[in-house]
C-alpha cells in the first residue's frame, strides 16, 4: 500500500519534466553527435536543449569540458535549421564565460547579424556581445554601429542593449557610438527609444552637464514636438528616473526648494500622463527623493491615493506598497490616505490588504492597534511568507513606537512563531522579539519565555543557535535565571550537534554569571562531556575547567567576552607564526581585531534601476581586509606590522572641482598610511608624478611618499604618504595636517587624451586640512558582557575620571551620538539607545587603541541646560586614558 503511494507521488512531481534525471557525462557524450559530417537537427535539437537545461540548473563544467562541447557546437553552424541555430546562440552565451577561444564564432555571428534571415539577426548580436572582449570590440564596431540604426526594431534594440553590456568592457569604444544612439532615440518603435535613451544616458552619465542637456532636450521633444515619442512610456519612465537622480545631485547646492527645479516640474507634469505606468513612476520618484518636505510630496501622495482606488490590482498593489514604504518618512502625508487604506483592508487580494493594514499600523494611533491586529489575525494564515514578513516589520515598528502595547504585540508574534513558515519568516519574528526585548526591559521576560517555547520545536538550526546564544547572554541578568536552564538543557538531550554545542556555551554563561547556579551547571557540563560529538565534548570540557578555577578574570576573557580578532587575520598570523619556528609564545595582541560591522539600520542604499546607478567616477574603495592586500604591496608596508584599522573616506576637496581628492587613513601600531585617491576631471590635462605634500603636526615624522606616476582624465589614481606617530608621546598623537596636491601638468588633446608636448609644468592645488583623530586610532570592540569587564578592570587598569559640560548639546541622544563618533568606541549593552523621556543616561563603551591597548569608558550624562558628563576611562595604559580625557573638552 505504501509502495503504491510512493510510486504515485513520483509520477506526480516527475510529470512534466523530461529532463529531470539527466546527467552531465551522458549529455556531454551525446553532444559528440554535433561533430558528425551531416548535422541532423532532429537529433541535435533535444541534446542541445538538455545541455542548456543542465547549465541553467547550475551544473558546473570544467574549462576543458566546456571548450570541447563549445567547439562541437560551432559545427552546428552548417545546419540551416532555424530552431537549432537559435539554440546554438543560447549555447554560445551560456558557455562564453567558461570555454576557451570562444571568439572563434565571431565571423559566423557577424555574418548572421548582417544576413537576410531576420530570425537570426537580433539573437546573433546578443551572442556576439557575450563572446567579445575589449580587444575584439574594434573588429565588430562597424557592425554594431550599423545594427544600432537598423530598420528592424528587434535588431536595433538588441544592438543597443548589447552596447550597454559592452560599455562595461570598453567604455571608450562604446562612447563613439553616440551618434547612432542619438538617431535611434528618434525611432518610431517604443522599445528602441527606450533602449537608446538608456544607452545615451549611460554614455553621458559621468558628465552631469551632458546628462542635464539630454534630459532637457528629451523633455522638450516629449512635450512639444514629436507626438509619437510620447508613446514610449518606457522611455518616459526612464527620463523620470534620470530626472530624479539629477534632482538629488543638485540637492547639495540648491538654494531654493525642489519645486523650483525644472526636473521636478517635469516629473510632476507626468502625473497627468496617459499611461498609468508613467503616472506611478512619477509619484514613486517624488516620494523617494531625499529630504523632501511634506508639501513637496503632497501631490505625489494624492496621485498614489488615486491609484490605490484603481480597479486594476497591479496598480492598487504598487500604490499601497509605495505608501507603505514612505509611511515612516512622511507619516502625516500618508495619514491623509487613511480612508482609502481602510477600504483596502478587505481587498480580495491579500497582498494588498496586508500592505494596507501595515501602512495603517505604521501611521496609526495607539488606540487603533488592537483593532488592526485583530483584523490581520483573520487572514494572516492565508498570505505568503513574504507578506508575513511585512506584517512582522510593521509590528516591530509599532513596538518601538508604542512600548506599552508590547503584550498584545508579543502575543501576536508568539502565535505567528507557532505557525508554519520558512526560515526567513521565522528569523524575522525572532529578530523582532529580540529587538523588542532589547528596547524595552519590561518586555524582556515575556519575550525570552516566548523564545524558549519556540526552540522547543524549532526546525531551523541557525535560528535555534542564535536564540540559545541570546538566552545565554540575557538569561543570567533576569530575576530568575534558573528557569531558563531547563529549556537550554533540553536542547542538549534532543537536538543535533550544532544546537547541542550552542546550548553548552549558553549554559556556561549562566555558570560564569550566577555563582549560585555554578554547582548545577557543572553537573550538567559533566554530563555533556560524555556527548557523542567532539565539538560538544570539547566545549563542555573547556567551560567546565575554566569554571572550576573560580577566577573572575578568566571568566571574563574566556567565557563572557570572547575573542574579538578577525578570523582570516588570525589564520594568517598563526600560519606565519608556525613558519617562524621560534621559541617565543604567540602574541594574540598582534592579530588585528575585527571591525565591528555596522548595524543593519544604518542607511541602506536605496535600490536603483540598472541604468540609473551611480556613475563610474565615484571613488568607492572597499573595506578593511581588501585594503590589506593593496597596502602590503607598498614598499615599506611589511615593516609596519599588522594593519590595525582604516578610517572612513574623508573628502579633501569639494565634489565639483577640477581635482577630486579623498583620503583614507590606515592606522598601524606606530604608523599611519595615508591613502589619497585622486580623480582628474579635466579632459585636457594629463597629470604626472602626483603626490600630496603634508605639513605634519609636531612630533609626527614623514617616512615615505609614494607618488602616482600618471593620472589621465577621468581616472582615479592613488598616492600614499607614510607617517610615523610621535615617538613615546601618545598625548600628541592627534593633530591637523596641512595638505597640498603637487603634480606635473601636461596639456593634451581632449579627444585622444595624448599630450601635445613632452614638457609639462609643475602645479599645485590646495587641499583641505586633514585631521588625525582619536577615532582613527581606536578599533571598536563588542563587549558582550561589558559589566563584567568593567568590574575586572577596576583593580587591574589605570583609571582617570573627569567632568565636562557639553553646552552645545541639547539632548542626550545628540550627546551620545557625538561621543561615540568622536571617540570611535563601540557602545555596549545597547547603551547607545536613550530611553524616551529620561533626563540621565549612562553610555558604556569599549575599544582597543593601536598597539593593542584595551579601553573601557563609562560616560554618565545628565540633561541640565546643555549636557553634563562624568567620564570615567579605564585603560591598561595610563597615557592613553589621559589622551582620551584630554581630547574631549
Amino acid at each position: 500500500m505504501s509502495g503504491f503511494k510512493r510510486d504515485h507521488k513520483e509520477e506526480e512531481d516527475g510529470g512534466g519534466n523530461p529532463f529531470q534525471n539527466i546527467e552531465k557525462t551522458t549529455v556531454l557524450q551525446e553532444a559528440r553527435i554535433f561533430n558528425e559530417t551531416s548535422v541532423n537537427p532532429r537529433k541535435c535539437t533535444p541534446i542541445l536543449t538538455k545541455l542548456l537545461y543542465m547549465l541553467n540548473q547550475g551544473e558546473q563544467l570544467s574549462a576543458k569540458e566546456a571548450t570541447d562541447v563549445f567547439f562541437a557546437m560551432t559545427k552546428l553552424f552548417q545546419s540551416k535549421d532555424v530552431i537549432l541555430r537559435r539554440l546554438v546562440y543560447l549555447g554560445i552565451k551560456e558557455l562564453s564565460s567558461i570555454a576557451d577561444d570562444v571568439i572563434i564564432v565571431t565571423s559566423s555571428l557577424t555574418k548572421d547579424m548582417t544576413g537576410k534571415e531576420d530570425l537570426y539577426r537580433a539573437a546573433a548580436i546578443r551572442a556576439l556581445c557575450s563572446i567579445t572582449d575589449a580587444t575584439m570590440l574594434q573588429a565588430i564596431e562597424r557592425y554594431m554601429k550599423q545594427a544600432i540604426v537598423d530598420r528592424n526594431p528587434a535588431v536595433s534594440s538588441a544592438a543597443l542593449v548589447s552596447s550597454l553590456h559592452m560599455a562595461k568592457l570598453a567604455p571608450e569604444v562604446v562612447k563613439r557610438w553616440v551618434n547612432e544612439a542619438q538617431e535611434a532615440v528618434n525611432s518610431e518603435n517604443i522599445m528602441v527609444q527606450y533602449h537608446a535613451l538608456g544607452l545615451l544616458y549611460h554614455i553621458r552619465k559621468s558628465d552631469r552637464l551632458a546628462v542635464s542637456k539630454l534630459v532637457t532636450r528629451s523633455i522638450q521633444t516629449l512635450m512639444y514636438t514629436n507626438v509619437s515619442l510620447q508613446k514610449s512610456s518606457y522611455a518616459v519612465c526612464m527620463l523620470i528616473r534620470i530626472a530624479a537622480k539629477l534632482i538629488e545631485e543638485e540637492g547639495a547646492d540648491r538654494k531654493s526648494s525642489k519645486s523650483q527645479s525644472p526636473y521636478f516640474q517635469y516629473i510632476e507634469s507626468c502625473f497627468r500622463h496617459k499611461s498609468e505606468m508613467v503616472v506611478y513612476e512619477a509619484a514613486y520618484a517624488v516620494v523617494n527623493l531625499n529630504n523632501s518636505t511634506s508639501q513637496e510630496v503632497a501631490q505625489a501622495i494624492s496621485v498614489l491615493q488615486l491609484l490605490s482606488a484603481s480597479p486594476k490590482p497591479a496598480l492598487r498593489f504598487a500604490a499601497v506598497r509605495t505608501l507603505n514604504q514612505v509611511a515612516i518618512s512622511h507619516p502625516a502625508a500618508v495619514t491623509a490616505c487613511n480612508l482609502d487604506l481602510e477600504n483596502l483592508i478587505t481587498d480580495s487580494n491579500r497582498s494588498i490588504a496586508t500592505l494596507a493594514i501595515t501602512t495603517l499600523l505604521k501611521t496609526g494611533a495607539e488606540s487603533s492597534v488592537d483593532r488592526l491586529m485583530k483584523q490581520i489575525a483573520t487572514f494572516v494564515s492565508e498570505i505568503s511568507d513574504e507578506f508575513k514578513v511585512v506584517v512582522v516589520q510593521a509590528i516591530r515598528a509599532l513596538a518601538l513606537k508604542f512600548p506599552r502595547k508590547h503584550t498584545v504585540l508579543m502575543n501576536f508574534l508568539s502565535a505567528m512563531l507557532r505557525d508554519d513558515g520558512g526560515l526567513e519568516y521565522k528569523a524575522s519574528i525572532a529578530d523582532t522579539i529580540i529587538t523588542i526585548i532589547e528596547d524595552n526591559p519590561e518586555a524582556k521576560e515575556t519575550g525570552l519565555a516566548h523564545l524558549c517555547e519556540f526552540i522547543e520545536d524549532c526546525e531551523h538550526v541557525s535560528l535555534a543557535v542564535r536564540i540559545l546564544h541570546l538566552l545565554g547572554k540575557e538569561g543570567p541578568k533576569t530575576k530568575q535565571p534558573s528557569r531558563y536552564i531547563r529549556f537550554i538543557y533540553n536542547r542538549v538531550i534532543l537536538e543535533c550537534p550544532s544546537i547541542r554545542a550552542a546550548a553548552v556555551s549558553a549554559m556556561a554563561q549562566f555558570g560564569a554569571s550566577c555563582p549560585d547556579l555554578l554547582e548545577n551547571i557543572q553537573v550538567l557540563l559533566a554530563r555533556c562531556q560524555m556527548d557523542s560529538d567532539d565539538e560538544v565534548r570539547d566545549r563542555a570540557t573547556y567551560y567546565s575547567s575554566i569554571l572550576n578555577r573560580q577566577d573572575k578574570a578568566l571568566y571574563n576573557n574566556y567565557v563572557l567576552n570572547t575573542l574579538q580578532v578577525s578570523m582570516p587575520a588570525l589564520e594568517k598570523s598563526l600560519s606565519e607564526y608556525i613558519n617562524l619556528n621560534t621559541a617565543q609564545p604567540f602574541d594574540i595582541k598582534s592579530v588585528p581585531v575585527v571591525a565591528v560591522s555596522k548595524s543593519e539600520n544604518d542607511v541602506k542604499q536605496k535600490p536603483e534601476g540598472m541604468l540609473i546607478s551611480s556613475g563610474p567616477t565615484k571613488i568607492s574603495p572597499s573595506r578593511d581586509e581588501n585594503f590589506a592586500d593593496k597596502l602590503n604591496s607598498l614598499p615599506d608596508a611589511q615593516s609596519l606590522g599588522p594593519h590595525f584599522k582604516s578610517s572612513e573616506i574623508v573628502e579633501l576637496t569639494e565634489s565639483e572641482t577640477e581635482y577630486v581628492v579623498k583620503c583614507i587613513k590606515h592606522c598601524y601600531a606606530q604608523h599611519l598610511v595615508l591613502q589619497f585617491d585622486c580623480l582628474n576631471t579635466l579632459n585636457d590635462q594629463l597629470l604626472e608624478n602626483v603626490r600630496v605634500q603634508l605639513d605634519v603636526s609636531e612630533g609626527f615624522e614623514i617616512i615615505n611618499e609614494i607618488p602616482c606616476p600618471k593620472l589621465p582624465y577621468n581616472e582615479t589614481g592613488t598616492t600614499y604618504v607614510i607617517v610615523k606617530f610621535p615617538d613615546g608621546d601618545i598625548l600628541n598623537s592627534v593633530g591637523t595636517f596641512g595638505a597640498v596636491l603637487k603634480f606635473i601638468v601636461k596639456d593634451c588633446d581632449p579627444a585622444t587624451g595624448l599630450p601635445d608636448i613632452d614638457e609639462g609644468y609643475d602645479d599645485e592645488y590646495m587641499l583641505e586640512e586633514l585631521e588625525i583623530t582619536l577615532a582613527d586610532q581606536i578599533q571598536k570592540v563588542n563587549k558582550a558582557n561589558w559589566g563584567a569587564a568593567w568590574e575586572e578592570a577596576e583593580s587591574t587598569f589605570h583609571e582617570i575620571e573627569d567632568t565636562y559640560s557639553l553646552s552645545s548639546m541639547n539632548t542626550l541622544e545628540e550627546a551620545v551620538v557625538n561621543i561615540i563618533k568622536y571617540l570611535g568606541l563601540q557602545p555596549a549593552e545597547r547603551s547607545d539607545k536613550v530611553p524616551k523621556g529620561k533626563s540621565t543616561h549612562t553610555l558604556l563603551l569599549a575599544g582597543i587603541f593601536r598597539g593593542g591597548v584595551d579601553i573601557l569608558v563609562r560616560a554618565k550624562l545628565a540633561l541640565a541646560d546643555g549636557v553634563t558628563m562624568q567620564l570615567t576611562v579605564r585603560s591598561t595604559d595610563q597615557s592613553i586614558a589621559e589622551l582620551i580625557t584630554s581630547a574631549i573638552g
Partner: protein
Amino acid sequence: MGLFQKLVSFLGVGKKDVNVLVVGLNNSGKSTVVNNFKADDDKVTDIVPTVGFSVERFQKQNLGFTAFDMSGHGRYRDLWEYYYKDCQGIIFVIDSSDRLRLVVVKEELDLLLQHPDICQKKIPILFFANKMDCREALSSVKIAAALGLDKIMDKPWHISASNALTGEGLQEGVEWLTQQIRELLSVKV
C-alpha cells in the same frame, strides 16, 4: 547505410553532402575563393578578414559542399585542428605573391600533415597558388617545390594557380577535388 542508399551513392545519382576545410595564412584569399564558388545570389560584395571561422555552402557537380572557411590569422591558426576530424577534403590557399611568408606556409602545412587527425587519413588536399595575377607571383611549380609537395605520398594532392577575384583556375581545381572525394566515398561503401 540502407541498401537503396548504397545503390544510389554507388551510381552517383544521390546528392551527397561533404565537408571541406579551407585553410591557409591570413590574407591569402580563402574567403574570396569560397565566395567565388557560391551561387550568385549568396555572394557577398565585400570581404573582410575572417575572425574565427565561417561556414559557407555551395554546390559543385551534384555534390553539396559545406566549407569551413577558417581564419588564417596567427592568433586563430591553433584552432584549425578542432575541425580536422570530420572533413573529407582540404583546400589550402597560398598567396603566391607573398614570398616572404612562404616558410610560414610550409611550417603550417607540415603541422597539418603531422596532425593525428590528418596523418592517417587518405584525404585529398587541393592547393591554390592564389593571386597569380600579381606581378611578383611565383608559379605553381615553384610553390610546389618550395613546400615540398612531392614528399606527400599517402594523400592525393593537386595544385592549381588561381585568381580568386576573377575565378580563373578555381574551376579546374575544384573539379579535381570533387572527383577525388567521389572516389573516396564510393570506396568507403
